[in-house]
């Protein structure tokens, strides 16, 4: 029997060329009973190896190659790698702590190393191999001969103990290696150490050697043709079968036998991790459960006033279940974070299934009353689930979220809390870029290739790498290009490097660094663990998601501006829920900037839904999701609501469950309740179904559930037609649907943002602009929309603007002043210095400005002048942009006495004022938008001559009319649910309009759609009117012909969405 005890995966980041899953599967095929994954300086791949091993029915040993400084071996100029295996949990904890210790000192990513003393300190429970060509034995032998190698081995014995050092032998048909093996055998015999055969596996099969070579090039920043001896000598570091290994070490049977013996000694696996969630500190004599009960009840009295029997019963049920499952500490920890947010004035709102819990509502974690809204608590927590509940907290993105993250670090210590990692893997673009580099493909070709990889969610069946290569004119039959394509294919989904997750944090009782190694993130003050969120979940580490939501930041910005400029105070928690302005706006799809309701799909859905109540908003946020769309729920929902179709239910017993959604299944909870009612699913089975719906590989898991559902429905005598409908609906929920509670949480934010937009447009627009990048639309679209609603937008002005956009009074009207953040290249620190200097005394002119604000660099002054921000410095109001440009050009350049006689301001400057078009081009170049007329307004005469109508005119034509129009492309979208249709949103000086590009037309105009900023369209007008509500209709153009409009110099920034 042979066990491979020294393997490396791609989680050694550019050193291994295989995935843990591939290793696990191959071990199963080769009947290798166990495998030890020893990635470089970490256990990054261990959870995936653990799961893969489970699936393959093998054992996954845990270990790592730990880099040591050269000081252990005098004369060796490079670090050496100690292959360490965790024999016991103590050993694993030591390994994690050791790696954390030296990683925390790292100044450059991947450059950290340990010291001999640290290794000695953490040696308990670890077994050390003498290593392959990068191991300590090879290094000692290479630089000091056999005597040095012996001394090095003795040193290892002194650190780890004689039982815990194995002399490693590898055979890759290499002369030098055999020399090393002979020396190793000699030393092993003299020191009476066991020998151990390994293959130093770097890839699963020989074919992956090419990936290993390419990774070597990337690591050393070389190309294949110049990497020389850095590349491997042959392709022998693949996973060999036990028979091959036995033959290879036929002369040393002990080396093979010892692998099984050592494998038996290695008792530790990740099954036995020893992770504990932190216990919430309570005062002496108190208990966590009692504290939770007290706080919940106190909160409930604030939330509900007098507790109705229903509420009291629900709270009692939840509290006793929480107590039974021992989760009180978890709730208190989340409550503690929310309390911190409240103290600091930071918006925080629980999202997801937590909104189903009355305890969460009472503790102030969520904003939805689950009792009043009849939400299903079991969706959040049940005995059957056997897993931790998931509470995600939405926070304003940016500084506020960072404050909360730092609070968690302070609370649990830097070794007790960490962000979860985000493993950056190779995607088409990055693969094409990096593989191209090593294969000497020219940079511009790689750039062009990267551009053809669309980021659309929908992919044609022939949207393959090959097609992309062909699209840029590469001949994929050519051997070099073929190899290029193959390499790109091979590395897709391989890990490239480690990032940090946007909000997931794990905390631990005691030291988290004993559970998983931690390392500093690139961002200052952040610590990240070596596993991503899926790995953490698989290893049952509790994660709290502190998610940054741009809209919360925008709302916070808005709420800060309202009292100052409107002299009013708005309490988001107590907004009137039936504001007519909000519903009127939503009914006519006037929702740009409104959270979750502004997307193209929502804008076409809202007039048909015609929302009149808050719950309609909840329906709206829940409806435009892949699950309900693929389940064909939208059309019946609209028809039934409009009275065009009778409300019916798949079965009469479902009326109670589906009544409020007109008989269709919109939310996850409804799907589960349907299964329980019509197919007799137990709570546990429903939970299984929920997992299948949310799991990545849900198709596999869903099959038996659907089978079971059919069986149950047959038993309950549901007719086959209804069965099919129900199964189809449930099946489509694989495509992701919202839990109702989540839709409620988002509905609240959506309504609040709509309210702010309708009542405080100036403040809301400023809030949105100051929270960018966020949302569906670019600042350009947001500004044009606000202007259409009557908001006056003032230009950037050094005498008035701040870094952020601000509000001003102009003739009793509140207007928006653009901030310096929209000046390209201008740094925040320079802008703030300018504002500070201005507060001392207003600038007397450009020379005064440049003298007093030393932080302003020449390349910052130029864009300020170009966008007209310096014009107001001239009291006579004669300065124009070019005058200002002329003046600022001389600052920042050393001048001598030669120029002494040149006055600061040259009124005879011959530079002409910018024309309208020049101003437009400059505005787009500097800020990405203009507050003046839309670009197409300047070309209207040409467009009229070309018979291209305005979008406003087009929208008022009859359905079915053939129309010809043109506009700026503001959004490009190819949703996964739309079967290959591309949706474009065109924008001109009069309006917006959607254009539907069907797959055949897209194929014809693919390059044009992907590249053009301004498009002309011929097509048929589609108009869907709301049958009940006259005047509410959705308009789009079904494109039959597209053509480019020549407007080359304007830099527009269309947004691509899935």
């Amino acid at each position, binding site marked *: 029997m042979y066990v491979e005890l020294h393997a490396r995966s791609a989680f050694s980041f550019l050193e291994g060329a295989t995935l843990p899953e591939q290793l696990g599967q191959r071990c199963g095929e080769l009947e290798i009973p166990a495998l030890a994954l020893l990635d470089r300086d970490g256990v990054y791949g261990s959870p995936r190896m653990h799961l893969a091993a489970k699936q393959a029915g093998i054992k996954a040993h845990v270990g790592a190659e730990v880099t040591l400084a050269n000081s252990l071996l005098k004369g060796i100029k490079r670090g050496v790698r100690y292959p360490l295996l965790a024999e016991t949990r103590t050993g694993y904890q030591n390994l994690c702590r050791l790696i954390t210790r030296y990683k925390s000192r790292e100044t450059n990513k991947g450059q950290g190393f340990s010291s001999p003393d640290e290794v000695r300190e953490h040696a308990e429970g670890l077994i050390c191999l003498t290593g392959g060509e990068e191991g300590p034995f090879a290094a000692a032998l290479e*630089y000091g001969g056999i005597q040095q190698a012996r001394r090095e081995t003795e040193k290892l014995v002194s650190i780890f103990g004689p039982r815990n050092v194995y002399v490693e032998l590898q*055979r890759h048909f*290499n*002369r030098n290696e055999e020399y090393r093996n002979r020396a190793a055998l000699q030393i092993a015999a003299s020191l009476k150490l066991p020998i151990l055969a390994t293959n130093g596996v770097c890839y699963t099969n020989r074919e992956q050697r090419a990936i290993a070579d390419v990774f070597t090039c990337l690591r050393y920043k070389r190309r294949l043709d110049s990497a020389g001896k850095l590349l491997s000598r*042959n392709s022998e570091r693949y996973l060999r079968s036990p028979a091959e290994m036995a033959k290879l070490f036929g002369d040393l049977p002990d080396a093979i036998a010892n692998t099984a013996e050592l494998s038996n000694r290695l008792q530790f696996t990740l099954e036995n991790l020893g992770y504990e969630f932190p216990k919430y500190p309570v005062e002496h004599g108190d208990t966590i459960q009692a504290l939770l009960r007290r706080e919940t009840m106190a909160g409930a009295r604030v939330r509900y006033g007098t507790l109705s029997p229903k509420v009291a019963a629900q709270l009692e049920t939840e509290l006793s279940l929480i107590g039974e499952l021992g989760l009180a500490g978890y709730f208190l920890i989340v409550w503690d974070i929310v309390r911190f947010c409240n103290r600091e004035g930071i918006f925080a709102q629980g999202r997801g299934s937590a909104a189903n819990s009355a305890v969460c509502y009472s503790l102030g974690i969520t904003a939805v009353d689950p009792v009043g809204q009849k939400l299903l608590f079991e969706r959040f927590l049940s005995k059957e689930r056997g897993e931790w509940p998931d509470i995600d907290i939405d926070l304003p993105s940016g500084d506020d979220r960072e404050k909360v993250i730092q609070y968690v670090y302070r609370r649990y210590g830097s070794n007790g809390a960490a962000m979860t990692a985000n493993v950056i893997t190779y995607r088409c673009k990055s693969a094409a870029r990096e593989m191209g580099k090593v294969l000497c493909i020219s940079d511009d070709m790689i750039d062009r290739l990267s551009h053809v990889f669309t980021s659309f969610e929908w992919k044609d069946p022939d949207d393959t790498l090959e097609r992309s290569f062909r699209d840029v004119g590469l001949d994929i039959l050519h051997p070099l290009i073929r190899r290029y394509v193959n390499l790109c294919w091979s590395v897709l989904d391989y890990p490239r490097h480690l990032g940090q997750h946007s909000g997931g944090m794990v905390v631990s009782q005691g030291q988290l660094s004993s559970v998983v190694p931690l390392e500093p993130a690139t961002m200052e003050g952040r610590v990240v663990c070596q596993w991503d969120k899926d790995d953490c979940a698989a290893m049952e580490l509790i994660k709290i998601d502190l998610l940054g939501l741009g809209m919360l930041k925008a709302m916070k910005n808005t709420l800060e501006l309202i009292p100052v400029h409107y002299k009013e105070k708005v309490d988001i928690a107590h907004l009137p829920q039936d504001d007519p302005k909000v519903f009127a706006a939503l009914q006519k799809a006037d929702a740009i900037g409104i959270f979750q309701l502004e997307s193209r799909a929502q804008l076409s859905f809202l007039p048909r839904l015609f929302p009149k109540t808050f719950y309609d908003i909840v329906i709206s946020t829940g409806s435009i999701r892949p699950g309900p769309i693929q389940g064909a729920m939208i059309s019946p929902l609209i028809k039934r609501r409009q009275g065009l179709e009778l409300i019916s239910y798949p079965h009469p017993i479902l009326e109670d469950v589906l009544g409020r959604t007109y008989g269709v299944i919109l939310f996850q909870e409804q799907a589960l309740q349907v299964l329980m009612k019509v197919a007799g699913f137990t709570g546990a089975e429903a939970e299984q179904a929920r997992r299948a719906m949310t799991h990545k590989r849900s198709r596999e898991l869903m099959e038996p559930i659907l089978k079971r559902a059919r069986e149950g429905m047959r038993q309950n005598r549901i007719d086959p037609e209804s069965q099919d409908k129900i199964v189809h609906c449930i099946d489509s929920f694989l495509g992701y649907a919202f839990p109702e509670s989540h839709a409620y949480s988002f509905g609240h934010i959506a309504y609040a943002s709509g309210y702010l937009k309708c009542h405080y447009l100036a403040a809301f627009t400023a809030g949105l602009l100051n929270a960018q990048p966020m949302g569906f639309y670019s600042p350009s679209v947001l500004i044009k929309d606000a202007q259409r609603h009557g908001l006056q937008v003032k230009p950037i002005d050094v005498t008035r603007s701040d870094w952020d956009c601000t509000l001003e009074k102009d003739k009793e009207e509140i207007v928006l002043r653009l901030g310096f953040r929209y000046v390209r290249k201008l740094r925040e620190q320079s802008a703030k210095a300018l504002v500070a200097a201005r507060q001392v005394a207003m600038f007397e002119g450009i020379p005064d400005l440049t003298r007093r604000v030393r932080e302003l660099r020449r390349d910052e002054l130029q864009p300020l002048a170009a966008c007209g921000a310096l014009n107001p410095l001239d009291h006579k109001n004669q300065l124009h942009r070019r005058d200002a440009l002329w003046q600022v050009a001389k600052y920042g350049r050393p001048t001598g006495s030669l120029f002494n006689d*040149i006055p600061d301001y040259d009124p005879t400057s011959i530079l002409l004022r*910018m024309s309208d078009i020049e101003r437009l081009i400059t505005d787009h170049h500097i800020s990405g938008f203009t507050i003046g007329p839309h670009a197409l307004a300047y070309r209207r005469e040409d467009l009229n001559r070309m018979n291209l109508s305005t979008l406003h005119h087009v929208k008022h034509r009859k359905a079915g009319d053939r129309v010809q129009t043109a506009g700026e492309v503001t959004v490009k979208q190819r949703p996964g649910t739309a079967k290959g249709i591309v949706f474009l949103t065109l924008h001109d000086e009069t309006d917006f309009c959607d254009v539907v590009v069907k797959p055949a037309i897209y194929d014809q105009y693919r390059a044009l759609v992907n590249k053009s900023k301004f498009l002309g369209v011929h097509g048929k007008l589609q108009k869907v009117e709301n049958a009940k509500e006259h005047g509410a209709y959705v308009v789009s153009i079904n494109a039959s012909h597209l053509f480019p409009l020549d407007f080359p110099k304007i830099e527009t920034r269309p947004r691509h969405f899935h």
Partner: protein
Amino acid sequence: MLFASIFIPDFSLQALFAKRPELKAKPIALIDGTPPLLRVVAANDTAMKAGVEVGLLKTQAEAVGAEPILRSADLEDAIHDVALTCARQYSPRVQDKSVDLIILDIDGLKILFGTAEEIANNICSSLAQERICVNVGVASNPDTATIAAKGFRGVTVIAHAKQIGSLLIALLNPTEQAAETLDLWGITTLGKLAALDAKALSQRLGPAGLVLQKLARGQQVNPFVPDEEQLEFCEKTELEYSVDLLDSLSFVLASLLERICGKLDEYVLATNEIDYEFALDPPRVAGESLPEDHVVYRRTLKLSNPTTDRKRLLRHIQLDLQSHPPAAPIMAVSLRAHAIRPRHTQLGLFAPQSPDPDKLELITARLANLAGEDQVGSFELLDTHRPRAFVMAKFEPDKASDQIPPARGWSAKVALRLFEPAKRATIRLRSDIPLQLTFDGKRGEVIEHSSPWLSSGEWWNEMVYSRKEWDVEVQFNDGTRGKFLIFLDLRTNQSFVDGSYD
């Protein structure tokens, strides 16, 4: 002063069309690069209208119906030479500025060739006869003449700087930053740039801005540096009867070399490059024309050190002729020596003794003559695992000693003598163990062997290799023994003996 600037627009395309005018009407895309990444570098109007853009790949150009033609350096050199020759017909002071730009000083040529405009027109028409369409700019300085040639079609005589005022700034190739600033100022033409106040401009754009403005104002910035003619010494002789013996030819060569070296000595110059050209007298068949290389023999001798040593030069030529004998008897001999300044080397008092470089060069030439040119020199190992990866560099003992890799403590101590090329062999194997070896007509039993060693690599190109090696000791049937490195090429399944161990 008066200068004419000859600019050949669309140079690469014109080079092609001059040679193959029938292509003009077709959509042609000139391509260049390394296969498979051949890219369009120029295209004619017909191709552009069809959708060809510079930078497209060959396949993309083909897809829109253009005919891709590989750019030819030879054609471009030819058209450039024609233009240069034409320019030199009018003036001895010519600056060969770039492949598509030639400047000539035409001051004082009126009596010989007419007015400046007439000269420019004549240049245009004589090149047009060669199917080359050029723009010629005439001005009082070479920069303005060049701007005019690049900015206007046909012949343009610039009498006043205002004439170039309408041309775009891009013609001056400003830096990206300067271009952006000027664009923001709305300064798009040379006229507008010229009108700016010089001091104020210098204050803003620095010296680079002033340079641009000077050019825009029709002032000279770059000096005119006429090409110096290469000093060459040429001697020829026609023989009364054809010579086919080296000894006889050496007599002729010696006398020509004597004359050349005499002139070199007079000018205190030396030569390190001699072109020799022989008119041959090959057997002819009536009515059959022979290719040029059958009637003319051309070689160039290059030496590392310039010399006027007649004997040394003669010996080198003799050795070269021995290695590369002419195909027919010689009728006429012409020698052309490129003259350069002699090199004087100060030898260090404590420098290690080394052979006289001249003698060493002669010895190396002799060896090359005996063994073949590519068989003499110093090994330079390449940075790759590929077996036998080395190049033969020129033998330079001082340099070679620096390149010996430092020995490591455990590196092999046995010397391997490689056979060049490796010897074909037959290896009898059983379970990867070599049993018998046959090569060079000898057969022997393998009495000892090491494990097979595997090496493979360069999978990304045509140099891909994969081989299995053994170190073996063989007892031959004739009683001799030897230790060899043998290998099996896994791609061709052929066996070889790579070398023997000392």
